[in-house]
């Protein structure tokens, strides 16, 4: 099975006819950009002047000492402009949009990081911008909604379905089916119909390329394992792609939510509850019922709260090239607290999943082993969720006072 857009038996482009020509156009634009060395050069230059690339690789020596096993390094994607790896994909797609001569971009967003990144890109390139966001996510990620609007984007709350990320994707696809002439859909992750998984993974591979060079320079060796959280799969694909041909174990960490036994999670690969299906234009593992209806997912991290997963990761799972685990909401909050206290780093709740799994495994590795955790984003945006999860009484008093002030 070497059909274009397929990774083993996963991927493909299950598209309504109305969108076929648009995807063809995008596929051609991407192929041309990939074949043109000046594109990658332009991309890396842009990311070094507009964002913070290369992002550093931080040795987490306090955590390493604390766990007493492998030496831990953290790839700092949180230091990108807008605070997450999302900026990489978005700016590269912006360059592509300019090449295609389109003037409007649309995007879906879960946690809001991709929406904010897309809104900044649109502001920078002079595109108009509409972001679709599940109503439930709009409610729990208000700060990002605020910033998107301030950046000039229109944020459309999606009230259909489970009112989360997958429903925002459906709505974005519907918009695109109407407005493909002037509009590009900036899909935020390495999922969806071909060419998105391949294209987003290619743009995000900048993470892995840098990380490989950095770990060799700083540790003098390749890591034993690389950890990344997995929602749609873009940050994982980004860092994994740097080590694909090495003897390095790739570990993807999904949202264990309230525990795999509760059914309230988003572990499509790490649990035995995912099964192969076709939805939102591609074939992969989904959390679905026996009829093929998508199930509701849950995670404390909105960015991981998604029913599908990158078809490339599904393939790596099936071939055994990558290992998939899950971390529960509670483990994630604990890992976040520890990381803040010991290293002064504030990973996003999404990224904290990778930390939680690495912390489970690090003590069992040898002291001459090295591991890399991808800190895909920063946690400042999660202040409301984290404060709730920690149950900080001072924060609660502050919010009550603030609300009273608005009432006055």
């Amino acid at each position, binding site marked *: 099975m070497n059909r274009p857009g397929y990774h083993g038996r996963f991927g*493909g*482009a*299950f*598209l*309504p*006819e*109305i*969108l*076929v*020509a*648009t995807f063809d156009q995008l596929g051609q634009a991407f192929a041309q950009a990939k074949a043109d060395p000046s594109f990658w050069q332009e991309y890396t230059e842009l990311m070094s002047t507009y964002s913070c690339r290369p992002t550093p690789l931080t040795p987490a020596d306090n955590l390493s000492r604390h766990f007493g096993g492998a030496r831990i390094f953290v790839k700092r994607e949180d230091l990108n402009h807008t605070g997450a790896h999302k900026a990489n994909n978005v700016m590269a797609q912006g360059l592509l949009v300019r090449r295609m001569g389109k003037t409007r971009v649309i995007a879906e967003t879960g946690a809001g990081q991709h929406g904010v990144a897309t809104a900044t890109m649109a502001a920078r390139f002079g595109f108009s911008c509409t972001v679709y966001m599940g109503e439930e996510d709009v409610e729990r990620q208000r700060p990002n909604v605020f910033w998107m609007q301030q950046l000039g984007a229109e944020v459309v709350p999606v009230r*259909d*379905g489970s009112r989360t990320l*997958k429903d925002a994707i*459906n709505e974005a*696809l*519907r918009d695109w*089916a*109407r*407005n*493909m002439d002037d509009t590009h859909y900036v899909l935020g992750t390495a999922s969806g119909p071909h060419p998105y998984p391949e294209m987003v993974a290619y743009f995000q591979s900048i993470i892995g390329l840098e990380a490989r060079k950095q770990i060799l320079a700083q540790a003098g060796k390749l890591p034993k394992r690389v950890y990344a959280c997995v929602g749609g799969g873009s940050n994982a694909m980004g860092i994994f792609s740097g080590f694909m041909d090495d003897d390095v174990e790739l570990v993807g960490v999904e949202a264990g939510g309230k525990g795999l036994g509760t059914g309230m999670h988003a572990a499509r690969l790490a649990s035995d509850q995912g*099964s192969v*299906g*076709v*939805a*939102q*234009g591609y074939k992969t593992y989904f959390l*679905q019922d*026996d*009829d*093929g*209806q*998508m199930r509701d997912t849950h995670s404390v991290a909105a960015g991981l709260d998604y029913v599908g997963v990158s078809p490339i990761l599904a393939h790596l799972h099936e071939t055994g090239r990558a290992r998939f685990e899950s971390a529960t909401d509670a483990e994630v909050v604990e890992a976040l607290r520890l990381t803040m206290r010991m290293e002064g780093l504030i990973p996003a709740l999404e990224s904290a999943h990778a930390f939680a799994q690495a912390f489970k495994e690090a003590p069992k590795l040898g002291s001459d082993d090295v591991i890399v955790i991808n800190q895909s984003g920063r946690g400042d945006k999660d202040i409301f969720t984290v404060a709730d999860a920690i149950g900080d009484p001072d924060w609660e008093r502050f919010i009550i006072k603030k609300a009273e002030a608005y009432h006055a």
Partner: protein
Amino acid sequence: MLESYIRSRRQEKDILLMTHIVLGYPDFETSLALVETMVQAGVDLMELQIPFSEPIADGPVIARACQKALERGVTVRRCLEAAHEAAANNDIPFLFMSYFNILFKYGTDAFVQRAREAGIKGAIVPDVPPEEGDEYLTAMTAHGLDPIFIFAPTSTDDRMKIVARHARGFVYCVARKGVTGEKTEFSRDLDGYLARCRRATELPLALGFGVSSPEDVDALRGRVDIAVVGSQAIRVLEDKGAAAVGEFIAGLRK
């Protein structure tokens, strides 16, 4: 076979009517009553949509109907039973409309076989382009059902030819960009597009997306073989009740 049925029916009528319902919306009893009502109102073919949780090609009216049906516990098994009942009691061809995952998860071949046993004549699965259609087309051929494919205004001439190679029964021409349930202007612009559709296939042509009034159906006479009414029938159902749907359908082709 759908093609010969459409051709013979066209000897008697200058335009045929295909309507659509969402199975289990608002409930199965109403679905089956709607089928009877529509058939009595003179409908020539019907699409029975099996709800799917991610209906990317549908607009808000149908998407919400599907969602509500699912919230009320509609299952694929129950949809198959209802389709069986509809086909057994009504003498027009019925087609399934759904998304590929519904077939895939059931087992594509088993699903199509079961559809044939239920008396279904064809299927519209909008997220299966021919390139992804091996499994689907093999099953449809094996069980003698017609796969209905779609032309869109964005389809190039070459693309239409590729799609036409796999199409049987008729080709569903989408009137405009977008999703189901939005307004369409059936202006002269349509003629160039329909001429391209005609050149690409010998099969009968159906036109849908935004057909909602007798004027719309009138405008399609002599231009296509079948007018497709989808979302508007659901709107009538929601606004005025099941009884009004019969009147609405009968009034479309005065």
